[in-house]
């Protein structure tokens, strides 16, 4: 264990320290929760920053742990999203009932994040599976975190049951892969190029397992219920970080290891893309509860991400990462506004937001921009993300798919506009009163806002992603 190992694994190490700190802080009664929160956020900000420091590529533990520029970037994206989630969660944690949950909350969050780290920089399927479980099981607890609230408990058990089955299916696939390839080390599997029915079966089972976390149709049905039932910070964590980790993992595995089976998995992505976009839209149309609404919107967005997978080249990979980055910031902006409103009033229905603009112009403007970004309206970032995804798909000549996608984009615009309508156009006699935002939330918003406005115009960001993907 020399220094270089530590430096290349610094994120994991630091995070472990965080976990342990939370354990201790939770046990020791004298430390006040508020200081714990402050310290945690400060410390995690430090972690996020250290992530951006230059790091050396490494291949540790018998290539079970791989660290390279791309993986660092992916982790950093997750870090930033997580940081925003934490910033936004302060409001929720400071609520009277939740004080006692702080320690457990952070511990679980960080352990899941750790799991995602390992998913991303896994060097073989064992680590990947381990990371996956580490990223899933604590989340089931978090989903059920609102103790004494039936919906939360329901969300927890639903998530656990379906995720257990999904991971079993994934495992079944892995076992078959093991039988076919004789090893589960990426480095060795990448060399093997034979395509057999079994390997395809295994691959699809594997995709199904990750598709579950990515909430692609038809593996998505837990999404809406869990999003609705879980406490709001957890929901946003689900919709951005956990989804992102699954996406990145799937991407790394498919592009880097199963490149020789690209024909099959692009086809799979084709079907998944269409089904996710269409079903997600159809359900989102009729939602009144905004958390549930966001769930289906995120399903649709996942469908759009699949468009990038249809292109099995570097272009596809780049656009997917780029889109995920933009999607995270936009979605987090939406959830930020929601969480403020929900924490203050407990209202989370679309109709409650009627006349929101009259009372909270700033928040509604941010929400407006975020929704436009999700809908892909220029000049905000989402437009660029979507456009490049479409380009990626079109460059493989998949014009039909692109056409379906753009039509779905239009449909999605419809329901995003419904929210806008509620906020700006509709009136109600008692709208949500003016909501004050804490400094943490302000910071979170400023990150999201600048991201949404800037990313599109600064082509350097895209170029950087492209360079990293190589």
């Amino acid at each position, binding site marked *: 264990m020399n220094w270089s190992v530590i430096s290349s694994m610094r994120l994991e190490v630091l995070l472990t320290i965080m976990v342990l700190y939370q354990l201790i802080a939770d046990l020791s009664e004298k430390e006040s929760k508020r200081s714990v929160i402050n310290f945690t956020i400060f410390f995690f900000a430090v972690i996020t920053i250290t992530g951006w420091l230059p790091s050396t590529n490494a291949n540790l533990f018998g290539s079970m742990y791989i660290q390279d520029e791309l993986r660092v970037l992916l982790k950093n994206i997750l870090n930033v999203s997580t940081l925003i989630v934490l910033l936004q969660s302060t409001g929720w944690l400071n609520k009277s009932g939740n004080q006692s949950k702080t320690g457990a909350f952070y511990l679980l969050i960080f352990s899941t994040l750790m799991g995602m780290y390992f998913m991303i920089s896994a060097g073989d399927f064992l680590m990947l599976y381990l990371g996956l479980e580490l990223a899933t099981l604590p989340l089931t607890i978090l989903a059920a975190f609102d103790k004494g609230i039936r919906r939360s408990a329901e969300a927890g*058990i*639903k998530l656990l*049951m*379906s995720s257990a*089955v*999904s991971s079993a*299916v994934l495992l079944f696939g892995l076992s078959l892969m093991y039988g076919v390839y004789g090893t589960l080390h990426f480095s060795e599997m990448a060399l093997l190029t034979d395509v057999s*029915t079994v390997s*395809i*079966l295994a691959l*699809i*089972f594997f*995709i*199904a397992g990750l598709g*579950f976390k990515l909430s692609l*149709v*038809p*593996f998505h*049905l*837990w999404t*809406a*219920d869990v999003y609705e039932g879980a406490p709001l910070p957890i929901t946003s964590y689900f919709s951005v970080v956990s989804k992102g980790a699954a996406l990145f993992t799937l991407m790394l595995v498919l592009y880097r290891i199963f490149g020789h089976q690209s024909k*099959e998995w692009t*086809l*799979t992505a084709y*079907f998944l893309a269409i089904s996710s976009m269409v*079903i997600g*839209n*159809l*359900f989102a*149309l*009729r939602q009144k509860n905004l958390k549930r609404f966001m769930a289906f919107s995120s399903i649709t967005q996942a469908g759009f991400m699949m468009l990038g997978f249809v292109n099995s080249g570097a272009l596809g990979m780049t656009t997917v990462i780029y889109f995920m980055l933009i999607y995270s910031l936009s979605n987090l902006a939406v959830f930020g506004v929601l969480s403020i409103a929900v924490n203050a009033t407990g209202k989370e229905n679309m109709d409650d937001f009627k006349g929101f603009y009259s009372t909270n112009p700033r928040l509604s403007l941010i929400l407006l921009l975020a929704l436009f970004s999700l809908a892909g309206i220029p000049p905000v970032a989402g437009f660029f993300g979507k456009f490049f995804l479409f380009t990626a798909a079109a460059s493989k000549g998949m014009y039909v798919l692109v056409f379906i996608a753009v039509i779905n984009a239009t*449909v999605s615009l419809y329901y995003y506009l419904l929210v806008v309508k509620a906020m700006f156009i509709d009136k109600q006699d008692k709208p949500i009163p003016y909501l004050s935002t804490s400094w943490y939330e302000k910071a979170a918003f400023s990150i999201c806002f600048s991201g949404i406005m800037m990313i599109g115009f600064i082509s350097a960001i895209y170029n950087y992603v492209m360079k990293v993907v190589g």
Partner: protein
Amino acid sequence: MDYSYTLLILLLPFLLFLFIGLVGNKMKPQLSGVLGTTGLLVITVLSYFTAFNYFTNRTGEAFKATEAFQFLWLQFTDKLIIHLGILLDPLSVMMLVVITTVSLMVHIYSMGYMKGEVGFARYYAFLSLFTFSMLGLVLATNIFQMYIFWELVGVSSYLLIGFYYERPSAVAAAKKAFIVTRFADLGFLIGILILSFYTNTFDFNLLTSVEGPAIAQPTTAVFMGLSVTTWAMLLIFMGGAGKSAMFPLHIWLPDAMEGPTPVSALIHAATMVVAGVYLVARLFPIYHFTSSDSLDVIMYVGSFTSLFAAVIACTQLDIKRVLAFSTLSQIGYMMVALGVSGYGTEGLGYMASLFHLFTHAFFKALLFLGAGSVIHAVHSNLMTEMGGLKKYMPITHITFLIACLTIAGIPPLSGFFSKDEILVAAFEHNKIVFAVQYLVAGLTAFYMFRLYFNIFWNNSREYHHTPHESPASMTIPLILLAVASIFSGFVPFHDLVTTDGLPLQTEFHAMIAVPSVAIAVVGIIFSAMLYFRKNSKPESIANSLSGIYTFVYHKFYIDEVYLFITHNIIFQFISRPVSWFDRHIVDGTMNLIGNTTVFFSGAIKRMQSGHVQWYIWYFTSGALLLVLLILYLN
């Protein structure tokens, strides 16, 4: 000789229009009137000067058409170019004189007639606009410039008819006039398009010159038995017929009498309505050389219209309408003359037609202004409410009588000469038409004197306030015009305005002249018998053939037919269904798309049943299905 000053003739009225139109309502009404009149006086002088110059120094044998001036206005293709310019040839110069004269008279007359009307300034602005566009029309160097001013004339006529815009009938009449003529203009436009497509030019000189593209290379293309050029010329004539209110496009003219009487005198008697004649005359060479068929059409249309109108005129009670119909019938004469005319030495009809246009302008204007002065005195249009006015308003009476004699064609008044020429031309060309026109001559005399007797003689009734002679501003124009209509017959017209610019030999045909005068006299006597004194003969006659009478009285119900077509066909059967179709079918489909989407989203909502076991089932079977798809189904 440099005619570039003629630009003023066009520019001045336009500037007057802008000036009076913009600041007219700021200044005293009278002032704008004076302004307009003086302006027009200048123009009149200028045009007389031009005419004098032009006709006195003819270079060589024939009159040459000279383009006084022109500039590029708009370029379509490298060949098809719209110039705005001034073309001086006998025709246009003659028209120049007519228009300016009558217009000046009307301007002066209106000073008295329109005194104290609201929108006096507006009235003069419109008059100037009309004068401008009419002059532009006759001076046009190319057919497209003509079309431009053609439209402008239509609009100014619209504005003037609708001058009393608070009177619904006036508004309706204006609308009708505009739309009918607009419809005719559509024909004109398409005609232009076709003509220009084959000849690739707009320019009159090129079009009408004998070796020009239109005549030298007539089109071989044939459509429904007529050459394409013929179609083009017919369509163009359609435009002319619209403006000149030839049957069946005549319906707007009687209603147009809703406008102020001087306007009727200017636009709907002397100048604008003869634009159709002018148009045909302008393009006469093409008509003559390339499509004699269309000339026949023109002849028959003209002849029918003249008879038709004359018959109606015998029954009308509104004096302005009587005059309107007589105008129709006179224009019919001109058309006939054009239709029967030949070219060069054969060009008697052409000359006669324009001669009649010339004289008609004066005496018809006179008639209208006289009628105006009567109406001004009696405050009514109906001849049944008049009678015995000769002792109240002597000047009007005399001048009106002169006018009536003129139009009836009593020598040596001008009408006699022009009408006589026309009859001669018709006689030489087509006997039937001649017969018709001969009959019409009699009818004309009859209904004009019916009018005259009913107004000035007949029973002298009591008026609630005694009528009195109109002010000088109105009587002076009457006198001047009377003079004009007496002597204008002696103008050596056949030397000046002919098809080819060369003087035309004409001799006096007693065997035509005498009968025509005779029938006129017969007509006069007949009407004198009926209307000189109050008696019951007219009623008895009317009753004896009541069916025909009412039929004629309602102008053969042509208006009703039109009403049916416009309202029931176009409105009910086209545009209403169209808008329904748009709302319910086209828009409906758009909404349907949305609704189906919503319906589907409702239909599949059971998928999210809330039972985790079903979620698991969807998950696994979905995965298996994918395997099936990827592995075995492709």
